[in-house]
């Protein structure tokens, strides 16, 4: 076998640096602007806004589609508490409450997004 290069090389540091730069760049790009306190929960399915709830009122909501997600708002935080989707990634996302955070259920094409107080005014549900 010729030239397998199985040992860590200096060039690999460049590869790692490139990935880190890309990750940090994206992280900065997606940082929520303005107020980080969550104001409202937006529920998207297929890229369309399905419903919007204020974060300060406790609420429970069923999302239907190919699968079923149960969304719950409690104490200013939101989580998917029940889901029959394969994988259950949305369940393990846990409770989120800050603006810019989101929960995604790919099999059901559902996205739950928290927006800041300042973002809420111009969104019509």
């Amino acid at each position, binding site marked *: *076998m*010729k030239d*397998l*290069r*199985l*040992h*860590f*090389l*200096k*060039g*690999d540091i*460049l*590869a*790692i640096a*490139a*990935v*880190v730069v*890309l*990750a*940090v760049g*994206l*992280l900065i790009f*997606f940082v929520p602007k303005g107020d980080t306190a969550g104001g409202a929960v937006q529920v*998207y399915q*297929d*890229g*369309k806004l399905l419903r919007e709830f204020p974060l300060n009122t406790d609420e429970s909501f069923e999302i239907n589609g190919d699968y079923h997600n149960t969304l719950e708002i409690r104490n200013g935080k939101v989580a998917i508490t029940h889901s029959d989707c394969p*994988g259950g*990634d*949305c369940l*393990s*996302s*846990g409770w989120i409450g800050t603006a*810019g955070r*989101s929960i*995604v*259920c*790919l*099999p059901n*094409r559902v*996205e739950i*997004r928290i927006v800041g107080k300042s973002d809420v005014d111009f969104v019509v549900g």
Partner: protein
Amino acid sequence: MGTTKRLTLSAVMIALALALSYAERLIPLQFVIPLPGVKLGLANIVTLVALYLLGARSAFIILCIRCLLGSMFGGGITGLAFSLTGGLLAMLTMTCGRKCKPLSVYGVSILGAAAHNIGQICAAMVLMRSYYVAAYLPYLLLVGLFTGFATAAAVAGVLKILSAERFGFSETSNRTQNTEETI
């Protein structure tokens, strides 16, 4: 390497990749890192070994058949779209990385993991019709650094053993027999 040997090896590697991608579903990594789509990428060990041992063409075929069969056993069409966009982009990146002299198997694997994440997020953006899913990408990329490094270590181990002449992967088969006699 003869055609028969290449064919047999490819078949074994497809089976191995399928078994690994099934086995890694049993490892609940998303409980440690609660992000959708976080996984170890164990099947990429096979893709990398194939790329280094059999070349890009065979590795490409192994990858495609693995994704196709994987979607039949579970995952469906959506799963196929995801594994193929991620897998093919990773394959392309790793083939280029393999040709890049300053990169070892570690760099190739890490770039492959990153490309895989980018491909999957692109597929997710199309599926969800939302660019917002890309907010997950930085976290996936950072996790990918570690999983990419871990798979590279596994690949390096496998290749070190397989490239030893007694396994018959060296350029000349005569020398293989000689070593076997000395052992």
